[in-house]
């Protein structure tokens, strides 16, 4: 964070790069050379609020692990050589094997302008639809559900609906940790409106459950059955809005019939709870149903979405203040990506690839030589194609599929076997970039300039306030350069993101004319200055309309103009627990980390909350398996294995376990939980079922457990390790099956302290060891080892790093011991204060009694006169009192 060159003279208004809430932040330079990040009080998404991750943004922009120049096969290369190689390899592969032999795998972290160029290059010029995005892992089921019901991928409502509602249903969403600012808005709204109720539907009890009036610990995958039951109750209780349904909805009867045949006991909920929920929902007109990954990441994700949408359509509770279904997105620009056609089955501006009219309009607009006619490969299929050699060259931008994809080891193997892998990212230290032939240094948050769209269709600017470090370039610029090198000079002759944005706004106007929802043609003439100063705004933006809710007017984007209710049949998750794999594995996020941690793990503060990967397991299961709290557990599935810390808690049901999805091989030896996840997908959306794999859990039989802090980055090679930044250094957890011959030697290597002075405690029979390294009187590292999970006050040690090393080996602060005072008994080092306190408290009257109590005076006896004097003085004082 030192010596950053802050470009603007004063405060920069920009947008947080984390979740889909899309909060505005104000960044200003600090005199120390760093930056200060504050919430933007005027941004409609957060209105002055910010979560822990956003607050810590300043701690994530230092250049420590940044890639500053291109690399080819691990060696530094010039941009010219690297991009020429990329262009020629892609061209050559296409020439030999056709356009579908190449692919782009992009990211909801990209800005809309980057995304637009990627999509244009692949779909318009390379001539393949093999561009997909990590949004496939996150939002694809919502996209599919929206399209099936509304005819387009449209979020009907806006964040203010959460505050205007009288009932907010949070299903498949740990909003408190994953979208904290929306959670805070609901908390505030609930406080202001005491009749407002919150229902939380989640197999786990989470931080979000704290505000819930009703928590429904639904069986994994049971959402469609619950909302089917709700639909039946809506019908049976006469809560259907017949007028709305009659005029604006198709498929009502089929949907209700299908729902009627659905068995709601598969939800695992009591009939009383189901009724309570249905009655609340039906009895509260202003109801918003918020849903997120718990709904989307499912082999029935699209159906779950439509089961929810059915209920809102049947009651007409959509597109009105305080009511409607609400998909909240995981990524900062998942929505922007959807808008520009980042998914393999879409064109730009919510146009459909498989619609000839749409295709033709875009082809003409782009002056594209060749356009694919069918959808490309969705993420899981794309990496399968890589594995099978059908895709021979892939360019991965700003995402880390070796960590985030299901069956992640298979993805890793696929990339290892791929002829040509290009990765653009901030750093070469990602699990994916380590497999790339070419790594291209891209700019990151604070350097990039463009737009993002949040979960409520609000477009806001991310602005650069720092120069690109080293030779890093913007993603749109890198891709445009490759486009030109591949021969498409005019189409990719972009000079600025504003230019790209304008082109895209013009295209959205064409989409609008074709009857699509996404139309920002009102911004087509936005000048560079106006683009620079663009305030957050909700789309659409046309000559006749700006923002607002969709569908309140009953107008939808289907050919008939009516919404579609779908008949939904409950399907269980595709993996089934068995004797071999008896547990259902749920995955999700933690409060203070973001995705695969490339940014959030650079912040010590964010790394302290949960500084290692873990598995939530129910106490009854843990007891049965002999797993104690803080043991390491080995989790296996048909796909892979992980080693995680056991977090024994009744937050999860027996038979279910939960693990966070963030940890990578950069931060943990075996924490990539997506290696456990089966690559089952939703047949409509292609979204993987990330939350319902089956696993086995057993105690990892460690010979020793360790914890270390270190100023130098640790170099662990144990079976289990998990490291996190801490202060100016690192903290690391360890567990292993082999015991080193000599702990001091081992610690010197692990903590990179070959010369430092050592403090050592060893208990060889018990297997305990503690080693602290001191340089110039300061603690530079410490390792604590025990045969059981080692008990150390970890935060205390983390704070001690770099400070005076006194009592470091104790690994915890000493109890509040009063100052013993000047030594009276030198043999036993007994101080005057200790003696006076004992005289008073234990009512000692003789030197012998002092000796019995404190040993003082019982050895050489030379202090006995002083003891006697202290006794006399004390008793005089007592008498005076």
């Amino acid at each position: 964070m030192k010596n950053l060159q802050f470009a603007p003279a004063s405060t920069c208004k920009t947008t947080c790069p984390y979740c889909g809430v899309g909060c505005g932040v104000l960044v200003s330079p600090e005199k120390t050379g760093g930056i200060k990040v504050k919430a933007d009080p005027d941004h409609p998404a957060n209105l002055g609020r910010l979560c822990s991750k956003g607050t810590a943004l300043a701690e994530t922009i230092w250049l420590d692990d940044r890639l500053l120049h291109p690399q080819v096969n691990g060696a530094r290369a010039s941009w010219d050589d690297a991009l020429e190689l990329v262009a020629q390899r892609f061209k050559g592969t296409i020439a030999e094997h056709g356009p579908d032999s190449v692919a782009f795998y992009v990211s909801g972290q990209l800005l809309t302008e980057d995304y637009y160029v990627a999509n244009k290059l692949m779909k318009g010029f390379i001539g393949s639809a093999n561009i997909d995005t990590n949004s496939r892992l996150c939002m694809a089921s919502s996209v599919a559900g929206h399209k099936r019901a509304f005819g387009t991928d449209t979020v009907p409502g806006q964040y203010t609906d959460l505050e205007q509602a009288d009932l907010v249903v949070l299903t498949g969403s740990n909003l408190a940790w994953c979208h904290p600012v929306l959670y805070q808005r609901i908390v505030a709204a609930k406080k202001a409106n005491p009749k407002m109720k919150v229902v939380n539907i989640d197999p786990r009890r989470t931080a979000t459950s704290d505000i819930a009036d009703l928590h429904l610990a639904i069986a994994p995958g049971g959402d469609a059955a619950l909302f089917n039951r709700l639909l039946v109750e809506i019908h049976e209780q006469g809560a259907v809005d017949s007028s709305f349904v009659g005029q604006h909805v198709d498929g009502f009867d089929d949907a209700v019939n299908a729902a009627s045949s659905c068995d709601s006991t598969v939800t695992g909920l009591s009939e009383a709870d189901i009724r309570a929920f249905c009655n609340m929902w039906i009895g509260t007109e202003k109801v918003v149903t918020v849903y997120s990954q718990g709904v989307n990441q499912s082999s029935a994700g699209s159906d779950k979405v439509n089961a929810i949408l059915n209920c809102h359509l049947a009651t007409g509770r959509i597109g009105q203040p305080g009511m409607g279904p609400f998909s909240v997105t995981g990524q900062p620009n998942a929505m922007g990506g959807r808008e520009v056609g980042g998914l393999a089955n879409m064109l730009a501006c919510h146009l459909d690839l498989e619609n000839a009219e749409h295709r033709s309009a875009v082809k003409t607009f782009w002056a594209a030589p060749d356009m694919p006619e069918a959808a490309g490969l969705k993420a899981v299929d794309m990496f399968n194609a890589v594995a099978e050699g059908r895709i021979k060259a892939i360019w991965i931008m700003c995402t880390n599929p070796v960590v985030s994809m299901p069956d992640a080891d298979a993805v890793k193997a696929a990339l290892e076997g791929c002829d040509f892998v290009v990765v653009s990212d901030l750093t070469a230290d990602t699990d994916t970039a380590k497999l790339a032939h070419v790594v291209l240094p891209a700019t990151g948050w604070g350097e990039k300039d463009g737009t993002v769209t949040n979960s409520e269709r609000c477009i806001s600017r991310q602005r650069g306030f720092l120069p690109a470090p080293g030779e890093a370039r913007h993603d749109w610029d890198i891709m445009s350069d490759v486009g030109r090198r591949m021969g498409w000079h005019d189409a990719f002759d972009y000079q600025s993101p504003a230019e790209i944005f304008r082109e895209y706004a013009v295209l959205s106007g064409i989409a609008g004319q074709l009857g699509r929802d996404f139309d920002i043609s009102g911004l087509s003439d936005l000048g560079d200055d106006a683009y620079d100063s663009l305030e957050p705004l909700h789309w659409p933006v046309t000559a006749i309309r700006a923002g607002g809710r969709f569908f309140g007017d009953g107008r939808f984007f289907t050919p008939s103009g009516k919404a579609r209710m779908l008949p939904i049949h409950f399907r269980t998750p595709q993996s089934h627990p068995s004797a071999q794999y008896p547990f259902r594995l749920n995955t999700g996020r933690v409060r203070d980390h973001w995705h695969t941690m490339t940014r959030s793990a650079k912040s010590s503060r964010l790394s302290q909350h949960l500084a290692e990967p873990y598995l939530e397991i129910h106490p009854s299961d843990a007891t049965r398996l002999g797993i104690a709290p803080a043991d390491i557990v080995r989790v296996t599935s048909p796909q892979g294995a992980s080693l995680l810390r056991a977090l024994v808690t009744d937050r999860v049901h027996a038979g279910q376990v939960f693990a966070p999805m963030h940890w990578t091989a950069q931060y943990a030896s075996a924490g990539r939980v997506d290696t456990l996840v089966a690559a089952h997908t939703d047949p409509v959306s292609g979204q993987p079922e990330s939350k319902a794999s089956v696993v086995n859990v057993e105690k990892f039989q460690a010979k020793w457990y360790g914890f270390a802090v270190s100023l130098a980055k640790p170099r662990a090679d144990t079976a289990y390790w998990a490291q996190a930044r801490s202060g100016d250094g690192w903290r690391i957890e360890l567990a292993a099956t082999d015991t080193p011959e000599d702990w001091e030697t081992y610690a010197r290597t692990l903590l990179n302290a070959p010369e430092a002075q050592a403090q050592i405690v060893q208990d060889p029979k018990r297997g305990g060891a503690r080693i602290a390294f001191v340089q110039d009187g300061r603690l530079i590292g410490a390792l604590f080892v025990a045969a059981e999970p080692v008990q150390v006050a970890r935060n205390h040690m983390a704070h001690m790093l770099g400070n005076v090393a006194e009592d470091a080996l104790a690994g915890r602060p000493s109890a509040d011991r009063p100052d013993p005072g000047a030594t009276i008994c030198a043999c036993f080092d007994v101080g005057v204060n200790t003696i006076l306190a004992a005289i008073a408290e234990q009512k000692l009257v003789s030197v012998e009694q002092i000796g019995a109590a404190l040993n003082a005076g019982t050895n050489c006896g030379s202090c006995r006169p002083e003891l006697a004097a202290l006794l006399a003085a004390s008793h005089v004082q007592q008498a005076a009192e």
Partner: protein
Amino acid sequence: MSRNLVVIGAGMASGRALEHLLQVNPGAYDVTLFNAEPRGNYNRLMLSPVLAGEKTYEQIVTHDADWYAAHGVTCRFGEKVLRIDRARKVVIGENGEVPYDKLLLGMGSTPFMIPLPGRDLGGVIAYRDLEDTQRMIDLGLKPGAKAVVIGGGLLGLEAAAGMKARGVDVTVVHIMGHLMERQLDPAAGFLLRKALVDRGIKVMCSANSQEIVGENGHVTALRLADGTELPCDLLVMAVGIRPATKLGAEAGLTVNRGIVVDDHMVTSDPDILAVGECVEHDGALFGLVAPLYDQANVVAQTLLGQEARFVNKEVSTKLKVTGCDLFSAGDFADGEDREDIVLHDAAAGSYKRLILKDDRLIGAVMYGDTADGGWFYNLIRDGADVSAMRDMLIFGPGYQASTPAEPYGGLCSLTG
């Protein structure tokens, strides 16, 4: 009518016994106290601080003339006892005999002098009393004076450090591989040696003395078995003590290495009791002060007709050399059934070793940071089960809170 108690030897053990006796029942006995040294009881343990110039003799006197007068003790200081006539129950001194009803022997010990050639030369002394101390103090007045101390135990090192503090060029010659081998393990002995060498004391371990060389009846050097000659003006032998048993043996009391006493501190003659370094109890001899004080209390009670028994407990040792903080207690020999917890701190130059057996602390050796010595000593003495506190045991009483005040008891890095 009070009876006659005669006490032979005004040392620390008998002094403590008298103190106790006279405090509990001042009228029980008429006391006569013999002492070969021409003075009363002083704290012999504190001779080293006197030598080092940290205390004066007056400061270490425990019982002065006023005290004896006030308590009615008849003092016969500077008078040797020639004989005990048990048949007549009299003690025969140089100046006449004194009848006793009860006799308390507290003759202490005599320094052991290695029978080296030349040991009778002038300038060859032990380190036992104020006279020896004064010889060493006087040596410091002579510019360029050299001294050799044979014996790297507690007393020898205190003598060496004291003389060094007075400007004497001192060499310590020790026959064993490391210093204070009875109290320290080799690692602590090494640290101690380093600290002494750092302050300018020469230390030679595994060194065999062969001959004391002299001129004109006065020592000039110590010659070692390897031929090395260490010139010196004074040679101090501090290689151990022998119980002073001569009077007792001649009187026909049961004597092994020391005068044998039972748990009540009574010798083979029911009217003769013994206390301190001259006794042998249950096969053990005594050199450290703590058990002597226990004996003194027991003997006083026995004299008063009260039931009391002496129990030999673990002792702790502390070297009184300023700047060399070491502490040793209990048993620290290696053994199959013993477990060690060891702390080395190279930066601070400190060392701690705890010896456990059957989940109990049986020994402790510390060098550098001895602040918790008393706490460890109590654990050894009480035989407390330390298994629950084992991980944190070596860090002392300040760290014995059951779990760190952090989430999950500080067992992992999860706090959420």
